[in-house]
């Protein structure tokens, strides 16, 4: 029964931010959180909402950015914030957006753009919550952004391995010992590309890193203004879980990109774009740094032998030389050369 006018919800106007000096002064995520020294995920929260602005509601599924952020009857949030369950970031976004849509369509509340952002950690996004996020990205009637802040372990619980933990990393569920030097043998999930490839109606999927603040904020703005459900996967160095000096959080984010471990890309209306340093790497304008520069700064890789580092390097080299789309789609190039029988 919806008339098209009623069916489509209004979208916000959020112009791209042109340089750090144009970043909004207002903080909608301020002090009062109990995150670690040098917590990159706390920075992700701050930049995410700085980009989104005041007409936003945020839903946070269980994890560091829940427990450490709003912890113990205190809050750093200026905008409305609500907890949701570990596997529910997708459902929370859909339920909130659907509620607004129904109430606006029926004239029960003022019809206006309201940004709905739902975030999750790597368990909430790449593991337990994956099914609900997949469903959320199919509901094209609802405008919302699901942001996965990925610190590569269940850092809040006690730093346990997840589907996003890199190969070989030490966690409390994957310690190193005389019988098992490498305990965690799974390779990190390629979550953003998987969601982009699997949900062709989803208009925007991007990977980001808060070390590049302006790029980060502009991707959030794009996701909120394009319409429909969108997904952003953020790479968040974690001094606690990775065992490095908090001072290095920013540098490790850059190193993950410069070594090619974390490709920065966005998929907008079926068009894939590598951007920033990753684009430069793909175009050969920037030489990939050796992964050891990144690995050896972290206690979680301190047990790595030269062979382990070489193996890690080889896997990253494959990403950039063998993948159908370098750094994004892990299919062998043979697929292209496949010729049908005469």
């Amino acid at each position: 029964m919806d008339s098209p006018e009623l069916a489509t919800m209004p979208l916000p106007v959020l112009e791209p931010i042109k340089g750090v000096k144009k970043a909004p002064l207002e903080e909608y995520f301020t002090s009062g959180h109990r995150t670690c020294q040098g917590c990159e995920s706390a920075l992700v929260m701050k930049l995410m909402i700085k980009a989104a602005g005041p007409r936003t509601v945020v839903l946070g599924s269980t994890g560091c950015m829940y427990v450490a952020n709003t912890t113990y009857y205190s809050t750093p949030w200026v905008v409305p914030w609500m907890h949701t369950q570990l596997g529910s970031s997708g459902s929370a976004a859909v339920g909130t957006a659907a509620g607004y849509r129904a109430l606006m369509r029926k004239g029960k509340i003022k019809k206006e753009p309201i940004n709905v952002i739902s975030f999750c950690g790597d368990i909430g996004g790449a593991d337990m919550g994956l099914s609900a996020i997949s469903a959320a990205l199919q509901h094209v009637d609802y405008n919302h952004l699901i942001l996965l802040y990925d610190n590569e372990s269940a850092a809040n619980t006690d730093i346990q391995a997840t589907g996003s933990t890199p190969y070989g990393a030490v966690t409390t569920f994957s310690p190193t010992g005389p019988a098992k030097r490498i305990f965690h043998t799974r390779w990190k999930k390629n979550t953003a590309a998987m969601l982009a490839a699997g949900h062709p109606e989803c208009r925007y999927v991007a990977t980001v890193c808060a070390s590049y603040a302006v790029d980060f904020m502009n991707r959030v703005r794009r996701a909120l203004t394009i319409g429909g459900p969108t997904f952003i996967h953020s790479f968040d160095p974690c001094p606690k879980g990775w065992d490095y000096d908090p001072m290095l959080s920013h540098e490790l984010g850059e190193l993950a990109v410069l070594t090619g471990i974390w490709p920065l890309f966005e998929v907008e209306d079926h068009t894939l774009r590598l951007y920033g340093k990753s684009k430069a790497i793909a175009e050969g304008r920037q030489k990939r740094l050796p992964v050891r520069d990144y690995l050896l700064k972290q206690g979680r890789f301190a047990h790595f032998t030269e062979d382990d580092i070489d193996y890690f390097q080889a896997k990253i080299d494959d990403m950039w030389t063998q993948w159908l789309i370098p750094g994004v789609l892990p299919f062998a190039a043979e697929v292209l050369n496949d010729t049908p029988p005469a």
Partner: protein
Amino acid sequence: MARTISVEVVYRGIFQKTLAKNICRGIVLAARKEGKIGIAFGRYGDSPERNGIPAKNFAIVAPDEETLQLSMAQYEPAESDITIAVDDTLCKGVESWAWYGLQPINEKIREGGTLVVTSTLPAGEIVKFCHTKAHPYRLAVIPGIPSFSGLWVYKDDHTDVRILGALPKVCPDLVSLDAMLAAIKDEWKSDLKVTSARRSYEQTTTRTVGPGEGNPEVPYKFDLPGWTRMREGVTIEGMKLGEPIQFGGQVGGYRPQRNPYFKKYTTRTMRPVIDFDKCIKCTLCWLQCPDSCFDVMPDQTYDLNAEACCGCGVCEAVCPVDGCITMVNESAFTDNKSQWEMWKTNKDAYRQWVAEKIGCRPERSHGFRYKGQYEEQVASMGAASGGGQGGGE
């Protein structure tokens, strides 16, 4: 006469977790050597420890099970015979959780009890940080750089056994030196660590802190509302937006509202010192700060709100100007005053202040050192025994 003895270990989050655990285990195992029994436990709510944020472990030792039960506590014992601060900056007080308020480091120490601190500062300097108490207690200083021994890789600088070695000296009722050394030998199978403990026993000195001596400031605290006054639906008021800053005639910039229930500055071991003359207004310190602790000033420079800063050092790392932001040992400061206002009021005095702070010793880091650095530093301190086995660094 045998009695229950409570030991409290206050430490800085995950990178001192193993250190604190070693200390409490050592105490209980040593007491066992003398037929006593004990328990070692961490404050459940602190786990998983956020790095830098003050957390607590406890060891309680008693002659027998029933006496032990008298002093058992699920979270924290009511008072301590010994409180150990494994980092001297903890002496400024600790705020572990929102609504906990600022707890003096010596809050639990009973009359005649002892505060044990690892520091390179003289006792007189440390006393200035500690809040005043109505009754006398003692202060023992174990010379040494605060040890951040790490998580996955335990960078062993012997701080654990040097603290253990000092305990029989400051509290003979707890355990004898022989028992302690025997326990250390059993637990770590290392003569070097036994030597470190013995050296520490010989060198540790204590002084009495009199009533009213120390920091007179009254620590902030909060009253928790009851269920009839709390908002329903597990809701609380959000934070308010910030406002432009007024200074003299100038108005402009932006100061976010900051949460009164958790200030976070007791997490800090280093503090950024800003040379405003060098600032090029690039915004990076402000933009990249995870704790939103920089205020945008009317002149577009960025001032530190020292009550919100937890000292991560990202601002120094991202600042493109050499020497514009320098992380300085927190023990060099006695207040949280605005650096910008100091600079505005008297630039010459401020430049002098900056030079003095930056030049100040002891040098400080988050404890992540290049390979071998621990050994050099520990060896360079007469008090220390000959370094460590280097963990797996």
